[in-house]
């Protein structure tokens, strides 16, 4: 570890985070022109995070690999349609990762009433992330995890079933055998509390 650290100090050049956003935009522009090397750049910067989110959602390494492949395939196909006004590429990739992973969960659950949602999720998100979006720091991740841990259990469950399992509030209520209003109240309270505890942090 210390050898690594001193080696980095000796090299005297640490990556600057702001460079990544520009590199991502440039990679997308190159991908739009059919440059496969640009896809490699993008993959090396983001694959681990895309894969980790997919693993958490699909809870299966092999399915998670398929999700990663779909995400970068979609990025490759849609590179020409992606503009800087859409916000940070990294945020877009994570959004795609969640959508593709949840598509898989829904396919596994194989419920006919969710067909519509699946196709709808394929397109670019309507609300672009801000252009100054960037990955959370280690400290921010610690804060978010701690804030989530502080929530009453059933509030946290509601948040996680929605985000990581792609359940609607109606499905969550059915799963917990609770009235619809209770689940809605829990989710509202949970997000409000998370926002309060993370003011200025994320």
């Amino acid at each position: 570890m210390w050898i690594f650290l001193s080696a980095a100090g000796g090299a005297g050049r640490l990556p600057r985070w702001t460079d990544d956003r520009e590199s991502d935009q440039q990679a997308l522009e190159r991908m739009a022109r059919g440059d496969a090397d640009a896809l490699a750049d993008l993959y090396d910067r983001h694959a681990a995070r895309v894969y980790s989110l997919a693993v958490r959602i699909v809870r299966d390494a092999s399915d998670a690999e398929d999700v990663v492949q779909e995400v970068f395939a979609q990025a490759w196909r849609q590179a020409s349609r992606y503009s800087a006004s859409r916000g940070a590429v990294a945020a877009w990739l994570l959004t795609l990762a969640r959508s593709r992973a949840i598509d898989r969960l829904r396919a596994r659950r194989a419920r006919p009433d969710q067909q519509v949602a699946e196709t709808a999720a394929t397109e670019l998100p309507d609300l672009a992330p801000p252009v100054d979006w960037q990955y959370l720091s280690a400290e921010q991740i610690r804060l978010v995890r701690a804030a989530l841990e502080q929530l009453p259990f059933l509030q946290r469950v509601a948040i996680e079933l929605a985000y990581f399992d792609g359940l609607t509030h109606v499905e969550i209520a059915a799963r917990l055998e609770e009235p619809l209003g209770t689940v809605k109240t829990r989710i509202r309270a949970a997000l409000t509390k998370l926002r309060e505890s993370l003011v200025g942090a994320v």
Partner: protein
Amino acid sequence: MAITPPNHAALGDQVELYVLDALTEPERRAFEAHLSTCEECRAQVDSLRPIVDSLGQIVPQHDPPAALRSRVLAAAAAPARAFEPPVARPRLVVHVVIPWLAAAAMLVVAVGSAIYATTLSSRVNALERRLAEAIARADVSDRQVAELRRTAASAQSQVAVLAAPDLLRIVLTGQPVAPRSSGRAFWSRSQGLMFTASNLPPLPTGRTYQVWVLTRQPAPIGAGVFKPDAAGRVAEWFATPADLPQPVGMAVTVEPDGGVPSPTGAMYLVGQ
């Protein structure tokens, strides 16, 4: 003063569900129509979005297998074939026209070496990034890291029960010694037992609460012990054996510290 359309009263309380992507499809469409006219809701969405976005980044991090990179890049390097979403694992189709195959193989080698050169520089970039992350993490002590890992793992198990397809729910009600107490148990054969309760009376010194699984067998099976927080709340996950007989109920008793093989104390919570 933000502009709020008349339907804000009816739809304004769906902001959180919308940002979390927890609305049903018709609800989502209706809310998006509302959002296009409601400044107040747009401001709410903007303030909640980073919170929800952060959820995608707090998951335990894993490195994808090295072979995956080649698969992703190989698909893009084949320009004639559209980069199709993989439905199944790619299968090798052997054509009878061998000379064509040889030409294709040479092409793959040529493209491959070009990709390899740029791959090396990308790898260096990726390594530098890892290093920066390691440095950023260096202000968190090893103990904290271990603690975080444990918390994250336990948190995952807790929710995994609720997401399990074979979820079994049991509502527990307070008994005469603890009439205000209530609890809920969620069990799945593969994911274990998640137990949560509130308004539990404080424990005397040297005592613990113990959770029992009631089955069709006469003897209750101890699932684990817990101590509630100062407010009398608990949310605890217990592993259960894969061959646990099908539960038909749950109970909670107060027992000597560390728990006992079969219940001896008063029942505080029972549910069928």
